[in-house]
């Protein structure tokens, strides 16, 4: 009882052989393994092609930003990062809006049809993209939506399955009494949702935001199919075309490595600042 009250002296679930020192040693070793490819990427973002291929493990002779800045120019870094951010934010906003409302309604109208709807929505998580991509692109094309707004709508649709699954599980645990009380106080449907329900489900909203933002930010195939080599490209697409245009059959590492390095900086920085939410998002997502 006393222990539970003071988290400082929280006991481990399991004592491992070798004591804490061994645990730290193992953690340090594993952390180095995890960091290795990233350090490798960092170091090789400062080298020329010859040095990368001949001595990939060596430190650069000089820390020149020439390769990074030329790579960033080539992938139109600022423009692409803004476009990707815009697409990600709008898509995630759309997902949060639609899926929270839909889940709320599904929970509060617990009928056979809503249970079937929920099943269909969750089953969509299992649908491989390949099984619908050609008809999807074709159909959006015919509505004049083979562009960035269309892309955002597509993300909205694809993110829905998982998000409804998460919201639904969470809203079920929100007591109806709160909403009833608000209704008795004369709340409108809008204020009922935005003042009562939405704040209550905030933890799972963080999860929905983080999980969707992660894959949308990094997605390659959908922007490739929808935008292709259009003027305004996402970061991953820029990366892909930078490699392609440098020569379909060549590997210009002195361009690829700094470009990859540059392209991951925004999300890494964001992660370092909002780490708490990332961890919380993933954790909440796992608790059905």
């Amino acid at each position, binding site marked *: 009882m006393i222990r539970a009250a003071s988290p400082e002296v929280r006991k*481990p*679930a*399991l004592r491992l052989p070798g004591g804490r020192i061994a*645990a730290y040693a193992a*953690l340090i070793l594993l952390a180095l393994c995890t960091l290795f490819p990233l350090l490798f990427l960092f170091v090789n973002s400062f080298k020329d092609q010859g040095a990368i291929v001949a001595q990939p493990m060596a430190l650069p002779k000089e820390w020149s930003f020439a390769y990074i800045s030329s790579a960033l120019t080539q992938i139109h870094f600022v423009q692409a990062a803004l476009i990707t951010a815009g697409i990600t934010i709008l898509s995630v906003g759309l997902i949060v809006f639609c899926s929270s409302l839909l889940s709320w*309604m599904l929970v509060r109208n617990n009928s056979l049809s809503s249970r079937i709807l929920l099943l269909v929505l969750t089953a969509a998580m299992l649908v*491989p993209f390949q099984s619908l991509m050609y008809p999807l692109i074709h*159909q959006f094309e015919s509505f004049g939506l083979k562009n960035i707004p269309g892309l955002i*709508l597509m993300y909205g*649709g694809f993110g829905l399955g998982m998000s409804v699954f998460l919201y639904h599980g969470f809203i079920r645990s929100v007591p109806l009494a709160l909403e009833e009380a608000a209704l008795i106080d004369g709340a409108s449907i809008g204020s009922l949702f935005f003042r009562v329900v939405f704040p209550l489900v905030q933890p799972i909203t963080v999860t929905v935001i983080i999980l969707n933002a992660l894959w949308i930010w990094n997605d390659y195939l959908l922007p490739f199919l929808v935008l292709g080599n259009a003027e305004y490209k996402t970061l991953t697409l820029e990366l892909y075309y930078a490699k392609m245009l440098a020569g379909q059959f060549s590997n210009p590492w002195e361009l690829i490595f700094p470009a990859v390095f540059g392209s991951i900086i925004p999300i890494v920085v964001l992660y370092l600042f909002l780490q708490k939410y990332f961890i919380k998002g993933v954790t909440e997502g796992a608790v059905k």
Partner: protein
Amino acid sequence: MSGYYKKWFWPLALPGLILFAAVVLVPFLIGLFYSFTSWRGTYFVGGSAWSSFVGLDNYTRIFQSRQFLHALLYTLEFTALAVISISAAGLLLALLLDYAGKRVALFRTVFFLPNLLGGLALGFIWQFIFQNVFNRMFGEGGLNIEFLTNMTQDSTKNLFALVIMVTWQMAGYMMIIFVAGLNNIPRDLYEAGSLDGANAWTKFRYITLPMLMPSITIVLFLTLASCLKLLDQNVALTNGSFNTSMLSLQILRTVRYTQPPDYGQAQAQAVVFFVLVAIIGLIQVYITKKKEVDA
């Protein structure tokens, strides 16, 4: 009360439902329909979808395609290995973090980091590491471990190269889920175990694992789904050379390897792929849910 929500059901649910129908449901149904036709991507043989209806032809041809069957097998092998590897690595990290207790925030940060990278970016890095760095480290003159050299130039070795890569990428994510699971285990269970003279292994086997079942369900579901559908990493490492195409890539290849492009066939392969993923996913959820109840 229920009447109130019922009144609002359609207005509030509709945006989501329309979006879902337009992006997932309708294209999926159209795709299903196209899988019974000789669709060529921009047209139907014979003019219209109805006149190019070929019944089950595309489906019978799937099971005569050695490439597709190989990709199917390769995907299943990879998935089995990768799911075990990712879950085990995630659990190990979680146990270590839990045991070390204090000052682990930095480690947690580091282990989660690879999840932020997209498959393409990560593929470019790992391709170079496997083909160049590993050959130096593990080749002659290095540690001399033949198996870890030229990993992308052999079907079996590449399976393990892919497993290494996705474990590196996803273990940190699973770690976080396991850490949360471990935190939910009441500590007095262990104390009771200690009193009964259980050692670390028996405690792990009879207390930790059963109590972690909910986390394990989630971890298995997430890893299964993403491993079965893996694409970017497959493209980046070998692009299918040395018989290393997994299903996602094989389906994309089908239209490239046929002239005129056989989109009907690719669509049928994708439907089979969906059925496979759905069956495996449902079986997994069913089994682990059952275990949770038993535990």
